């Protein structure tokens, strides 16, 4: 069982501002309740399989120049800096 407080806390952590809090919480609650079906899957002893990619398959860690100034595609920038809000009020 998940509490409304937990869901509100997570929404803050995920930086989601929600107006109609009650409706959201109810729907998320319903979804998480449905996930409880996983408890009856009987997979406790199952190993989690992972896909390994050898380092040789990764592309080289080298600088590849891009033929455009990407910063100019941003809405708020000055020179080579991105304009961002201040870190504290």
């Amino acid at each position: 069982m998940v509490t409304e407080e937990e869901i509100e806390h997570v929404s803050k952590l995920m930086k989601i501002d929600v107006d109609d809090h009650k409706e959201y919480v109810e729907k998320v609650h319903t979804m998480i309740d449905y996930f409880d079906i996983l408890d009856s899957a009987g997979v406790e002893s199952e190993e989690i399989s992972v896909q390994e990619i050898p380092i040789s398959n990764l592309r080289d860690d080298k600088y590849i120049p891009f033929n455009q100034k990407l910063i100019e595609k941003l809405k708020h920038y000055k020179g080579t800096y991105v304009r961002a809000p201040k870190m504290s009020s």
Partner: protein
Amino acid sequence: MNLKISALDYVQEVKNGNISAEDFVAKTLERIHSVDEKLHAFLSVNENAVDQAREIDKKIKSGKKVGDCFGMPISIKDNLCIKESKTTCASKMLESFIAPYDATVITKLKEQDAIFVGKVNMDEFAMGLTTEFSAFGPSKNPWNLEYVPGGSSGGSAVSVSAFECVASLGSDTGGSVRNPASFCSTVGYKPTYGLISRYGLISYANSIEQIGPLTRTVKDTAFMLNLISGVDSKDNTTIENNNEDYLLGINSGIEGKKIGIIKEMIGEGIDPAVLSATKEAISKFEGLGAICEEISLDMVKYSVAAYYTITATEAGSNLARYDNLRYGYDFPVEGYEFNSYISKARRNFGPEVKRRMILGGFVPSAGHAGKYFLKALKVKSKLTKEVNEAFEKFDLLIAPTVPVLPFKLGEKINDPISLFLVDINTVTANLTGKPAISIPFSHSNGLPIGIQILADSGKDKLLLQAAYALEQTVSLPEVPI
């Protein structure tokens, strides 16, 4: 001019000089302008398409080498980047985003002289299965405008079904190509994981999603796969296609092949018309010389919960980048503290995206990961084992693509669990990385029914051969729009 031809017929007609790329593309744009007001498949239309087609005709006339598409008009789901084109993901967050580069599939299709007639509608960030969660309004099912077209690649399926293009590219995370293909009576293909590069696909759940074609015929899907599959140095999850020609031998038949009927996908909750169509498909396969037997995959009943847990977690991480500083819409930063600015800016996400991001923060969090996320990964592992064991006994597996018929717009939008369960037959292929195809098979009360076939990883060619064999047994009505 007949716009209702297949991609391969289009290529042949242009090659033979019976039609020009310019005329065909011009007629296609006319068709879009005349029917899309009702259907809303397109979010943006490439008004330069006719000029581009004219250039291809010039190449043909001058005897220059022409790519295999010969100016074929294709629509592209709006989560695939086309350089210097809007790529919105059907989200207000990316409403004005212009992609600075091409996705690998786009590069490959450009090299083959394809023409992109427009970007098509989808559920926001591919989160949904009806297109009702598009920030720009839903697409409509061309078979009945009051019904959903499926999703999330709903615009792709509508545009192919309603003859607004010859083929389309979508993306399939839990059935997002196959579900709308089934609802709109087109072919929809989810390849083996890694067969098609995801570079330039805006990420939702990287570990299971794949780009896939939607076409009018199985042969057209094989043709598209020939053009876009293979290793890409920009996506290290891609796998070799060994220069496979998926068209070659597509008519080999399936005599003697063993097909497993997935018991859990034809059980409780299935619409009687869908069940009846599935039985008919099985009977047709038997008539073609296949041996069909029932098989049980116990983990299927947990697959939807595992799927939503895993995808929400990956989405929570992938969508963290949308802080409205690097991507986003016009919302000035002045007067805001950093975190409150991001939270305010992210209000522009739609309700379904917000819900899934909250889920994505919750299910892997400390104190809950063991109960949800880790258990979901274990279900995924066990399901993969079950399916691998099934493929030791069977060559192919069969089930209806969707257990229910297309439903009315708005009918399920407020019932998340009911919507979740529409995915029950499609998520298995994504969680296990197996290839799967939906082919148009039947109709009930004017609404399409698709049949899904799955094969083992890397057996895409066999899968297309089986789908082609079944397709040849079917004769379906024409879309009424």
